[in-house]
């Protein structure tokens, strides 16, 4: 109930921020930074492993939002903003990977998850990718909320185990075990559906 109330208040704030963007008010940038700056920077920092890169990534995301709204009117502004930051961070990480930069937590997370899909060589076409995505989404929706959040935080937000331990009030070992069990269940589910 408390989460729903908080989310409702956040939705009102999101609508107000979107309104500011549509009015082309620079106040929208400040409101967005104060509201979601920390979260976006943490995502970018987990992927890029650098505070400077994370700050630049967040600035790039704000610029993208500034250019997109209007005409875009995202239903979920926080998810929209996080996705933009994530895309910018991944693009920057791909560029930085060529320069052998370290500090990113993304490779470790991807390595864990790629073990689940190890038998899958590559995705041939878009329909196959969409089918796999739907199966994964369906699986995640069937999980308890804390397990689903744990999974997304680990593999989408690229959060470390210690961060997850603090966020979810679990021991690091419990986090590792829970993630391992989720991956195992995901693998079994995909196998049952003939996707692996």
């Amino acid at each position, binding site marked *: 109930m408390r989460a729903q109330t908080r989310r409702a208040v956040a939705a009102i704030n999101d609508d107000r921020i979107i309104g500011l963007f549509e009015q082309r008010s620079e106040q929208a940038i400040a409101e967005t930074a104060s509201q979601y700056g920390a979260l976006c920077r943490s995502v970018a920092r987990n992927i890029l492993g650098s505070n400077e890169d994370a700050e630049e990534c967040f600035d790039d995301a704000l610029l993208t939002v500034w250019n997109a709204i209007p005409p875009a009117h995202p239903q979920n502004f926080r998810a929209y903003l996080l996705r933009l930051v994530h895309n910018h961070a991944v693009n920057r990480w791909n560029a930085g990977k060529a320069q052998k930069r370290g500090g990113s937590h993304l490779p470790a997370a991807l*390595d864990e998850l790629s073990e689940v899909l190890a038998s899958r060589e590559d995705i041939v076409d878009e329909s196959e990718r969409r089918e796999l995505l739907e199966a994964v989404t369906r699986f995640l929706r069937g999980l308890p909320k804390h397990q689903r*959040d744990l999974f*997304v935080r680990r593999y*989408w937000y690229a959060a470390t185990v210690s961060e997850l331990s603090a966020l*979810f009030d679990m021991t690091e070992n419990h986090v590792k075990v829970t993630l391992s069990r989720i991956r195992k269940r995901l693998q079994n589910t995909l196998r049952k559906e003939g996707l692996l």
Partner: protein
Amino acid sequence: MKNDALLKLLEDLPDDLIDSAADPQPHRRPVLLRYALPAAAACLVIAVSAFIWPKLRTEKPEVTEESSSVQVTTVLPAETEAADGTSAQQGNTLTETTDPYYVHIVTEPVYHFTTAPRPEKTDPDATEDPGGEEQGDPAGTPDTPNQPQQPSNNRTTTAPNERGNSQTPSRTTAIPERPQQQGQQTQTEPAAPTTQPTPSQTDQGSATPPGNNGRIPCSITRVMIGSGNSPVASEDEPISGAAPKSDKQEIAKMEGNTLVIRMDTRCSDAMISYLGLRNGRLTIEILYDNAEYSREQFEFRVELPPDIAAGIYDMKAECFDVDDVDEYIHDRDNITLVIL
């Protein structure tokens, strides 16, 4: 799958999943699971260890009236032979049937056997008990019933036993007034095992103990009957019970074909209520009435058929300490004396 393809796959996760993960809820077990249940379990363990477990450790099995009077009648081989005459080849084995088996039982205080000094109580393996020999005579001695009328003679012929509790005239006079409650006895001695009378009882001429009207069953169980290949006892070498630990213990031994059970317990009445097989062992149950420890000794004599008597082996006496018996008498309704 390559990391690039995996990243691209993850990028397309629905917004609601991403947005939901932005507000993670701490995963804590409910307070009930974290504190209440462990506390309740701890309380339960403490309660069991503090109250229940000590009782369970100290509580001894209670022989109830119902359990001690289970109707399992047996027929010893001699009776079987007498019944159909076809089981002569059975040797020492026992056959369980529904027919009752009657035995000759002699119950009377030891001090009636006063023709000779009785053996040492601490020497259960004494070869011959003169009194036992007299009791083994089914006909009985004619002067035995007259003993109560001649207390002074009895007293003069009684040799003091090892415990120093030689019979007193008052005790002797009280005996004939006791009603004889044994159904079949080889001797006509009217005195059942008697209590050591108090002065008031002596004055009244009655040994009936006051107060307790309830019977306190006392069972002597598990005198093993051997099978055909068991060692055969002879009259020259009677099988004796375990040596008593002290002079205040029960003794069971064989005197010829007679099973002699000697007890340091006085009571207003006593009878052998059951003799038969239970779980393959010869079982003897003795019912006490108003039982109480006494320095008097009583002997129960059970005449067994010769083949059964010869088949008894591995007869061991497990004797209760006197304090235990006394505690049982005062605290419990049942006494269980076991001869393994």
